[in-house]
């Protein structure tokens, strides 16, 4: 546990080393990046193995940083942070595996990637609101360059939009935090110090609105989610995996860790608004995903829809729903990573198209059977099928939300159906174009015949197959890691809930959480 801060230091040091190594050898940069990510992940797993569930944040490092303003370099962790740092380590490792084929300016790519990871670890481990903010902003700039340089569709637009949304969000957060700091007498920015401040009701409403909205923009709260699909689509695969998988969780984490416990009165005032926006996001983004022509946009909107569940869980504010929300953060981090990996790396890098219409004609399930299997698994996880991590998470959120307002849960449940619809549509169009069914005529005869022979590659298809490089070992490893994680948590959600549950009993969170078994 005490080694957790090393995840931050390792990532930043790794970024510098990789940058220097990349100038000489691309291969060395790749391996060093992978080693750094593995080391960070190893640290988080070791910490997880030795973790004794407890209610309050456990302090890891606590030294004065800027005494003039009472800012401390205070890192701490509890079950919630632990869940998310484990996710970060996993997503970082998988992201590097899935960007093994980046050829251009490799050192810089992985250096920026690791710098982003370092910032993410920092956010999840901060126990001082300003320190958290600093790490949060450190993570912003690498995103811009990762997308603008290595991205695809409208990358400069997507990068700028994403960064400006994130930065505007963080500006709101800063305004809210500084206001709370000033109004609370300027004692410091520690969570406990800020929570101890005495704020009037109107101040609480304003502070909560600023801080929550600022963080929620990054979590993809409807209607401020528009950066997410464009940004994720424009980003290179590893960055999309990380953006959808982990960076959006920074926003949700900020809402849970900072906005809600510090300004409970503000939270209760805004609760219905947040819940309805979350529900609207779930359904709206799902419906939009249903009509996308671009494979990656389907996944981009599905991320917004799934993050809506996280926000709904937070808005319901009972231990069951919030526990589910944290579980959903983990679950979506893994599943979104897998989906983006399939779309951006496994499919796009071989077919050079993401248009579902084009993919449909390719009948990928025969040419890339392994990818089809992976995507079907990921799709099932994304739909919330039992046995995958999405199921216990969304179920807890829906039950928790029902306890507060059945209407929220009912509308959100519609979103689950929509998610099943767009996922199945994407699976069918992208991989099983010859299976007929939902839309349009089936492709011409011979291929249908081949389909009857149990999906084995036909001679026609295998003529083209040499155009598609085989699935490489880094891809297989990465996919295996992610699938294993979602199945493991799906089968035994208590692995994570045993960490998360007790942490929801902390004195800070108890100010907003009520009732419901964890």
């Amino acid at each position, binding site marked *: 546990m005490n080694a957790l801060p090393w995840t931050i230091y390792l990532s930043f040091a790794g970024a510098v080393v990789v940058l220097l190594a990349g100038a000489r050898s691309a291969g060395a940069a790749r391996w060093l990046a992978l080693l750094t990510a593995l080391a960070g992940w190893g640290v988080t797993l070791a910490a997880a193995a030795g973790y004794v569930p407890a209610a309050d944040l456990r302090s890891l490092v606590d030294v004065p940083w800027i005494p003039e303003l009472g800012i401390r370099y205070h890192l701490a962790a509890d079950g919630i942070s632990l869940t998310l740092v484990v996710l970060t380590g996993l997503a970082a490792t998988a992201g590097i595996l899935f960007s093994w084929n980046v050829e251009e300016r490799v050192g810089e790519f992985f250096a920026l990637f690791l710098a982003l990871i370092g910032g993410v670890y920092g956010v999840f481990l901060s126990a001082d609101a300003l320190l958290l903010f600093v790490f949060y902003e450190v993570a912003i*700039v690498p995103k811009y360059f990762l997308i603008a340089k290595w991205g695809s569709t409208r990358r400069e637009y997507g990068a700028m939009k994403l960064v400006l949304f994130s930065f505007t969000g963080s500006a709101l957060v*800063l305004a809210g935090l*500084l206001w709370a700091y000033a109004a609370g007498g300027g004692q410091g920015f520690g969570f406990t110090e800020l929570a101890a401040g005495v704020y009037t009701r109107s101040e609480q409403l304003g502070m909560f609105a600023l801080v929550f909205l600022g963080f929620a923009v990054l979590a993809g709260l409807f209607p401020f989610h528009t950066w997410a699909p464009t940004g994720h689509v424009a980003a290179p695969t590893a960055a999309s995996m990380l953006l959808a998988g982990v960076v959006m969780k920074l926003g949700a984490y900020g809402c849970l860790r900072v906005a809600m416990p510090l300004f409970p009165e503000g939270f209760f005032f805004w609760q219905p608004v947040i819940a309805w926006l979350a529900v609207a996001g779930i359904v709206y983004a799902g419906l939009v995903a249903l009509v996308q022509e671009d494979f990656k946009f389907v996944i981009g909107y599905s991320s917004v829809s799934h993050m809506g569940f996280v926000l709904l869980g937070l808005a319901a504010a009972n231990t069951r729903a919030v526990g589910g929300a944290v579980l959903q953060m983990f679950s979506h981090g893994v599943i979104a990573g897998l989906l983006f990996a399939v779309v951006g790396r496994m499919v796009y890098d071989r077919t050079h198209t993401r248009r579902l219409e084009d993919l449909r004609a390719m009948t990928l399930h025969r040419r890339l059977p392994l990818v089809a299997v992976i995507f079907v698994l990921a799709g099932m996880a994304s739909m919330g099928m039992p046995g995958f991590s999405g199921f216990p998470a969304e179920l807890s959120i829906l039950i928790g939300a029902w306890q507060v307002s059945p209407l929220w849960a009912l509308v959100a449940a519609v979103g689950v159906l929509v998610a099943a619809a767009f996922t199945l549509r994407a699976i069918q169009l992208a991989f099983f174009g010859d299976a007929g069914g939902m839309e349009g005529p089936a492709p011409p005869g011979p291929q249908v015949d081949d389909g009857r022979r149990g999906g084995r590659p036909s001679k026609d298809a295998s003529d083209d197959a040499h155009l598609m490089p085989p699935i490489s070992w880094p891809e297989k490893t990465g996919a295996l890691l992610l699938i294993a994680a979602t199945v493991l948590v799906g089968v035994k959600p208590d692995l994570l809930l045993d960490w998360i549950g007790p942490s929801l009993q902390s004195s800070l969170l108890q100010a907003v959480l009520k009732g419901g078994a964890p």
Partner: protein
Amino acid sequence: MNASYLELARALQPEAALIIGALIVLGFDLAALRRADLEARLRTAVAIGAIAVAVAFALACRTGAAGPVFGEVLMLDKLAVAARLGVLGLTLLTLGVATGAPAPRHPAEYVAIMLFAATGFTLMSAAQQLLLAFLALELASLSLYILAGFDKSRAESAEAALKYFLFGGMSAAFLLFGFSLIYGLTGSIDLPEISVALARQGLSPLLAIALVMVLGAFGFKAAAAPFHLWAPDAYQGAPIPSAALIASASKLAGFVLFTRLLWPGLGAVAGDVSGFAGPAGWLPVMALLSGASLLLGNLAALAQSNVRRLLAYSAIAHAGALLLGVMATGSAGPAPLFYYAATYGVATAGAFGVLAVLERGGVGPRIEDLAGLRQRSPLLTVCLLVFVLSLAGIPPLAGFFGKLFVFAAALKLGGLAGPAGWLTLLAILLSAVALYYYLILLKQALVAPAARAAGPIATPWTAALTLLAAAALIVVLGIFPSLLLGLL
């Protein structure tokens, strides 16, 4: 008045070192280097100048906070010491920048005038009497006018100098008029006595006129809207080291001078910006200047295609935030303002330093000309990245903490209940706008490919060293802001 010339001489050791240094620069060049080529003469002049500044720096450290000097004409408090060290450090940085820029036609004169300007800055940092304040300001300003127009062969340089001079001369006249009114009202030119007299009198119409005059001159010095019109042309046309000096050391000295004038001197008629119904005074007027600068600077910067004009508009925007720091000085002390002004100076002078090396390498002043800088000079790219991100206020660089300290201090004035709070909110939100144009700049340098088969850009080692030191300073002061805050 317990005047002691010995005491005065001791307090003015740094200024003496600068003047002697300037004379040596001139004399050595005249005696020994008339036949040498320009580059060698520039290097020698800068070397001697740098030694003089370093000696002045050491002397300013040694003199320390000696309190009032020479019958309170000078006030060597902590702020004065910190500001002296700050302006000397920034002058040293500008000298380094000068070695990266194309050599001016009369290098020794150029360096000597920079040292004279620095003398003005250090005096501005400590002046506590209207007459000395005005003289110090004029010494600095006259030197800067010459520096702005030093490149006689370029029309832009002449235009920059003329605009700067006309605006500056006008503002000096207003300032002097304001000072004369203050003297007429209070019967004194010493700030402590003025403050006592004003506390008795309160605000009168005549004093209001004097305040407007003083604020106008301050607005000019700070490049705050609506007194900013000279800045884009001066930043664009002046030789780059001159522009760097105008944007960094001159600004720091100006803010310290006027903060001392306004708070200890005219603090009795400050008024109130913590609520909307507070008493009148100069603070509400300054709030207007600040808001106008923030809006105009950030929005106009969006439309710029020339890097130096972009930096000029960003300077106007930063002036708005710095004015917020001046407003907060009354309650929070000068530390946030000083930290902001000093680190802003380093970042902006550093950015000009990068531009100077680029100009020498034949890279044009437009934003697109930066394309491919990453391949052409990794060193300059890294430095530019640090400076620009610091200007944009991205942690953990110093620019972020400058904003943080100023905004925290301003919000402590009364939360969001008054103009100070609303201005802070405006400044925080506009920082997202600012990030846009800074990223446009960085995108060209880091992402866009080089236009043609453009070769690497050579950086003189002195300039490289200066830029690296400045970038390191930005990082170190960002991670350990207390190093600088602790001075105050």
